[in-house]
């Protein structure tokens, strides 16, 4: 992993995406800010209800009602160097961005693949939507895309329908479709979560290689800290709709500045090659007590406080997201004591 260049290509600023459910409001994304630089992989990590997926759908403007962006900006820097705000961009202009500038892949490949068309036709359609190109040229490019994602016998596979492919291959076809127009940003929402571990390893290797070769920026949304450690340059940790910590990957795994991140890491059994300690006892995990809160019924102040071992009276006041160290943000009053 090389050092990432400095220029941000995507800046999410104070994003608020809320779901109005009758009289209640679920603040699924509440005042979320982070940058993605060119050629950088930023992992957005969180558990269910953290708002990580809603953040990515907001960037793509793929929210379905009652979800809606109620505040903040999503600034995308175009090739010409001007910044446009995707949060307020009219839908017809957004269509020129989706797929062409920013593409997205999902956990479930059938979210983006149409079961009624062959994989080749779908890639061709995507290319011709954004670029002036003959069918023949587009088909040739589609074949190269399938080769790029390491689908064997690519020329033959162009005529496959999605159901004729295995799960791992469908995932690759979806990646080929997403990358067909050479997007500058790829948003990957749990793309390996449903895959078996040996297939996940193949897809992670592929994504890492493509990111480096194509120089894309990647926003990788996941709940899996192992995947984060393998892929990310920087990490944004979300909890109950907010960013609670953000740091370069090595820094984050070495020294956590938020009790939630620290707790999350302590929950994962780490490989110990079947060792037991000398007493013959298995080491115990240190779980976080309680469960993830409902974003439609959050307590005032820090949302993590009810589960936090460091909580104090002051935590009833919402802590700001502040620098705890250079390049390392934490939303915790006690970030120095974590």
């Amino acid at each position, binding site marked *: 992993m090389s050092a990432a260049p400095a220029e941000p290509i995507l800046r999410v600023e104070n994003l608020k995406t809320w779901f109005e459910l009758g009289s209640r409001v679920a603040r699924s994304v509440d005042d979320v800010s982070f940058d993605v630089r060119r050629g950088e992989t930023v992992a957005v990590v969180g558990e269910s209800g953290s708002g990580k997926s809603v953040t990515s759908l907001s960037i793509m403007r793929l929210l379905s009602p009652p979800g809606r962006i109620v505040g903040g900006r999503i600034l995308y820097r175009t090739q010409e160097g001007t910044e446009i705000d995707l949060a307020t961009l009219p839908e017809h202009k957004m269509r020129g961005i989706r797929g062409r500038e920013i593409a997205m892949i999902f956990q479930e490949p059938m979210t983006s693949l149409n079961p009624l068309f062959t994989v080749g036709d779908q890639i061709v359609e995507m290319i011709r939507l954004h670029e002036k190109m003959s069918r023949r040229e587009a088909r040739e490019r589609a074949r190269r895309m399938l080769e790029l994602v390491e689908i064997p016998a690519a020329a033959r596979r162009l005529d496959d329908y999605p159901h004729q492919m295995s799960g791992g291959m469908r995932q690759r076809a979806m990646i080929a479709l997403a990358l067909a127009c050479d997007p500058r940003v790829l948003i990957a929402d749990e793309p390996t979560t449903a895959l078996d571990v040996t297939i996940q390893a193949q897809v992670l290797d592929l994504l890492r290689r493509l990111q480096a070769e194509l120089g894309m920026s990647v926003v990788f949304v996941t709940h899996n800290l192992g995947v984060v450690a393998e892929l990310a340059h920087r990490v944004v940790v979300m909890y109950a709709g907010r960013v609670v910590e953000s740091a370069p990957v090595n820094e984050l795994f070495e020294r956590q500045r938020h009790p939630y991140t620290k707790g999350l890491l302590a929950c*994962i059994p*780490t490989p110990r090659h079947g060792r037991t300690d000398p007493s013959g006892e298995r080491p115990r995990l240190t779980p976080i007590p309680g469960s*993830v809160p409902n974003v439609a019924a959050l307590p005032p102040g820090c949302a993590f406080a009810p589960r936090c071992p460091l909580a104090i009276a002051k935590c009833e006041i919402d802590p700001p997201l502040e620098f705890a160290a250079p390049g390392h943000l934490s939303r915790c009053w006690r970030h120095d004591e974590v």
Partner: protein
Amino acid sequence: MSERPDILLSVQGLSKTFPTRGGLVRAVEDVSFDVRRGSIVGLVGESGSGKTTAGRCVLRLVEPSAGRVVFDGVDLAALPARDMRAWRRRMQIVFQDPYSSLNPRLRVEDIIGEALDTHGLARGGKRRERVAELLRRVGLDPEHARRFPHEFSGGQRQRIGIARALAVEPEFIVADEPVSALDVSVQAQVLNLLQDLQKAYGLTMLFIAHDLSVVEYLCDEVVVMYLGRVMERGPSRLVYGAPRHPYTRALLSAAPTPDPKAPRGRIVLQGDIPSPLDPPSGCVFRTRCRYAVAACAATVPAAEEVAPGHAVACIRRDDPELNEPALSPAGR
């Protein structure tokens, strides 16, 4: 495998085939392993490995097609179905999905109480007391006995499922992916609970999972399955510390570790898991194995012991090429 008294469960040559329109699916094929009293044995594998079907055959929730399931000296697979009820009191199951495995129309006290009723274990006030005690034991508030499943979080529901399994005081529990539907922070709570209960009641457990680190954490022994067959089995210490089968090695090296500085000696397996409708001849792993030779297609390799209790189903298990230190996941 002799039926030593410290072996509570001995699975011998277990097979299960399902007829489908596309032909026979060999979900489980000639699977054998022992579970010692008071131990936790992990059954790991990817999708299509047959781990779930094997677990259900053990309880006869699915009828085995062949083989023996010897529980405390008696072959359950040979018993008439009506005789199983008495045995079911001694063996219970915890399911993966805490949403679909609890009846949404029953109150928690009846979800747990039903098991007591079935086996005539407690009635009236005794039943209420026992339910309260079980809820307390799994870390839930006994006051919540009158609530319905939807009023609980995923982790709490899984605790209810565990309390239901414990209600009849079983000796043996099959836990089928009991934490994989849970958030990471909640997963650890349930793993600790399972471990505490196992110790407190001296339970014997068959723990089915696809998450290798969870199995390593919890289990004394591991059985690694692929496409219906056992590839390797043995003490966790050996299978994780010194894996011998190429599949086990690839599987261990494929799992991402939460440490960005960990060296990555990853073995990336080519291709997909073959269809169980049409498994490869000979060794079922050979189509993805970088060490496969012509002989691998000819015969199904038997699981041979390479150390006491550590068996590997690979004809090249002793070949030096397979045992290059560079490939050991210990160097991850």
